[in-house]
């Protein structure tokens, strides 16, 4: 007979190929027309009820989104800061305790492996969140550093509250200190004895918070949030709504807008921070870090690489995956993410284009759209203009204290 303890420990993934986040029951109960997908091995919603209503909750009330599937790595030890300075391109020495920084890390060719957010919880205690899995890379990089790396993806869960009423909901919930919490800052607190970590971060370009906690308090906590949000239009959302918001905010996603260098099979698909428009993150004045030499050398070369641009496109046809031409005939790149933006009332896109350094190449760009109308394609050539991201800039995102809606 198999002991019950053994049974519990056994790998049951073959019965349930996708993990259930601790919030799964909560979100599944909110589903009416649900679509689900595999996000990092978790069963995650793309749409729970209505994509557009979910999107508008981000912009006009408040949304709750399950961020548990994000990879979360805890980095603890006396040399945690030195280790992260080698791993990532930003200067971690300059990052204060209780702050969050957007960062990225490269391989020895200076090609971006992934981007993510780095939470500095205390002097020697960090959390790194990323889209892709990187445990072997982190462990190999930590060789020779007095630091411990723990994959806490399965032990820590999180939700993201994004939207104008997010602060009000947290006030209602009884969280002290929301008024003083500036963007990219964090603090730890307890809500009826449930320890949580709140940071003013998000992936929407709106006012919003991300809250991490242990798995065992997940359900109780999210029900409390739901109750507190009942008068503030709190809506459970899936990935599609979030994706619309993040494109408006001009955020890029690994393996959608660029290919992570450890996924790329073709060498010319790899991108350096400059190519992603993220060169400003790289601190070349700090000591050695992964990719530094290659990044320095690449600045000497005449860069003819693909770069990521933010585009506005005439008309309102969907442009996802379309090809962009210079002077209507020379192919210069493709759209990686695109939506019709409800906020700007424009067709917007992120695209990788190979334009060279000449300014004149930035004009006279056209996009080829195949528009399907009742079983017949119409080929359209629409004018494209390069703009500076983000597409939207909301004052409430950085207002401190945030207004009470």
């Amino acid at each position, binding site marked *: 007979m198999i002991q019950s303890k053994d049974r519990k420990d056994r790998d049951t993934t073959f019965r349930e190929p996708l993990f259930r986040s601790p919030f799964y029951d909560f979100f599944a109960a909110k589903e009416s027309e649900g679509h689900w997908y595999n996000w990092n091995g978790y069963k995650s919603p793309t749409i729970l009820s209505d994509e557009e209503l979910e999107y508008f909750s981000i912009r006009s009330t408040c949304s709750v989104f399950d961020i548990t599937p994000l990879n979360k790595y805890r980095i603890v030890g006396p040399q945690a800061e*030195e280790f992260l300075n*080698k*791993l990532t391109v930003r200067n971690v020495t300059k990052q204060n305790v209780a702050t969050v920084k957007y960062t990225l890390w490269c*391989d*020895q060719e200076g090609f971006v492996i992934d981007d993510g957010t780095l939470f500095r919880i205390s002097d020697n205690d960090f959390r790194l969140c990323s889209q892709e899995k990187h445990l072997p*890379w982190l462990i*190999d*990089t930590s*060789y*020779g*550093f007095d630091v411990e790396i723990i994959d806490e993806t399965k032990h820590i869960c999180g939700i993201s509250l994004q939207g104008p009423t997010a602060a009000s909901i947290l006030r209602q919930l009884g969280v002290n200190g929301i008024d003083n919490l500036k963007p990219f800052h964090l603090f730890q607190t307890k809500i009826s004895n449930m320890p949580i970590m709140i940071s003013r971060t998000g992936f929407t370009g709106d006012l919003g918070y991300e809250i991490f906690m242990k798995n065992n308090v997940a359900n109780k906590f999210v029900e409390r949030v739901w109750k507190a949000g009942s008068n503030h239009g709190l809506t459970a959302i899936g990935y599609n709504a979030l994706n619309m918001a993040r494109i408006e905010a001009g955020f890029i996603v690994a393996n959608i807008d660029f290919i992570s260098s450890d996924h790329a099979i073709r060498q010319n698909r790899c991108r350096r921070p400059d190519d992603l428009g993220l060169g400003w993150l790289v601190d070349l004045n700090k*000591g*050695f870090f*992964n*990719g*530094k*030499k290659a990044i320095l050398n690449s600045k000497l070369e005449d860069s003819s690489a693909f770069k990521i641009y933010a585009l506005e496109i005439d008309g309102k046809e969907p442009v996802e995956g379309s090809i962009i031409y210079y002077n209507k005939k020379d192919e210069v790149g493709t759209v990686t993410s695109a939506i019709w933006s409800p906020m700007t009332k424009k067709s917007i896109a992120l695209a990788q284009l190979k334009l060279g350094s000449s300014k004149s190449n930035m004009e006279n760009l056209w996009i080829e759209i195949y528009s399907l109308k009742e079983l017949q394609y119409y080929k359209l050539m629409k004018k494209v203009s390069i703009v500076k991201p983000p597409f939207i800039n909301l004052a409430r995102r950085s207002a401190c204290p945030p207004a009470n809606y």
Partner: protein
Amino acid sequence: MKSYDVIVIGAGHNGLIVASKLAASGRRVLLLEAGETYGGMARSEVLFEGFQAPELASNAIGISKDVVQDLGLSKYELLFNEDGLKTVGLSIENENVIFGRNFGETIEGLREDEFKRWKELREKFFNQSQLFQRLASQIPVGRNYKTFGSKANLFLTAAKLRLQGKEQFQELLRMITMCIADLVEEELETSSLKGLISFDSTLGIKLGPRSPTSYLGLLYKLSQMKASYQEKSLSIHGGVTSFINALFKSAEENGVDFVFKGKVSSLIITDSVVTGVKLENGVEYSAKTIVSSISPVSTFLDLVGPQNLETDLTRRIQALRYSGNTTKLNIILEELPKLHSSQNLDANYRYVYAPSLEMVESNFNSLKYNELPSDPNFEMYFSKISSGSSLNGAVMASICIQNTPYSVKGGWKNSKEVLMNKVISTIQKYAPEIKKGILFKSLLLPHETEKKYFVAGGHWHHSELQIDSLYSLRPAFDVSDYSTPIDGLFICGAGTHPGGNLFGLSGLNAAKKILQESIK
């Protein structure tokens, strides 16, 4: 802080070659050695009652002709065995084969038709070894792979091999990744001959005769033979010491400064540029060029340190296999032992105990599982001690034992004696009186070599000489052309291409690379 143009770390033969060659070009060179004297793993040690001999290196299969010519070593006294080295393949049924010089040009004790087949096979072996012979003196394609110049030599080598004809080229491609067992079993019957060839293909590397690619080990050895003085080999009697002394004298005459007992603790690196070294005793020296002849593992993980290294390179260096698998046994005997077949042992012969291919393979299996070989295979040289010591007339037996694990199950404490006794009782089967005449014996295990000679893992080649770590992959792709991502730091030890025994081309190639770089 004293300043030099070049600092070389490690006074092994490769370190000495680099130091001498760079000093000859007019650079001020400092050679730092952790041990008390020069020579590295080929250095002489006092073994017994004031008698000095190399404790580890008993014989070099080949020292590169290029090294001797380039450094003009022939003006110093190099001791050669003009007749070349003959090998006796000991067999169990007392049907020993005697392998003529030059890897079996002639073989005594073999039927005529088998010898005919052997001759053809041997010719094929030597012919194919040209691949390595040509590659050995080239600077491998490395980080500069994008330029055509870096690949030109490689293309030329391939073209030359192809020009030998389609059939020969196809045969090379067929055989190159095969195991030596399949190749010798295709053509030969005599057990001790097959055993001998298997032993020679796999000595010093962690492969058995039935492991794929074990044929490469033989090609490698033959290519070194061909690149050396084919007709003669370094004398068993003092040949290694004469070579090391010649290198030292050459370095000294070129003006190299030496510091012994100067173990380097770290390199001084700022922003990926090396500016000097720091010794364990706190002394610092500065130089724009640092050349490390110690193992790549120690160079990168200990001296450079992971905080100055890309994760990609740290990974590759960590993945190197460098635990030693060969043990050295030295015995000093009152006189040359007699074989029981009344036939005298000849001090000019090499004796190999590998009576069958199966035995070599089964001992390799023991190695895989960290067990003692049940009936260890070994090679053995005898050299007469004549230098005016009290031991005059005595004989030193220098024995290399194959397939001994770095760490053995149950620990070496109890197994060391067992291993030594196993080997001695094997010798006793052929020379019954040997035990009576033993004046001194000492066994040096891989982990003891590691400690005494400052070699990571105690591996004679610093890292395995196998298909995944040759040429551009030795020790790792990013550092295969002797330069490193740290500006000013070069590597030149046995862990670099082509490595291997006392060949010396790693040092010579590295010196050429450094001279090339600084011309630019």
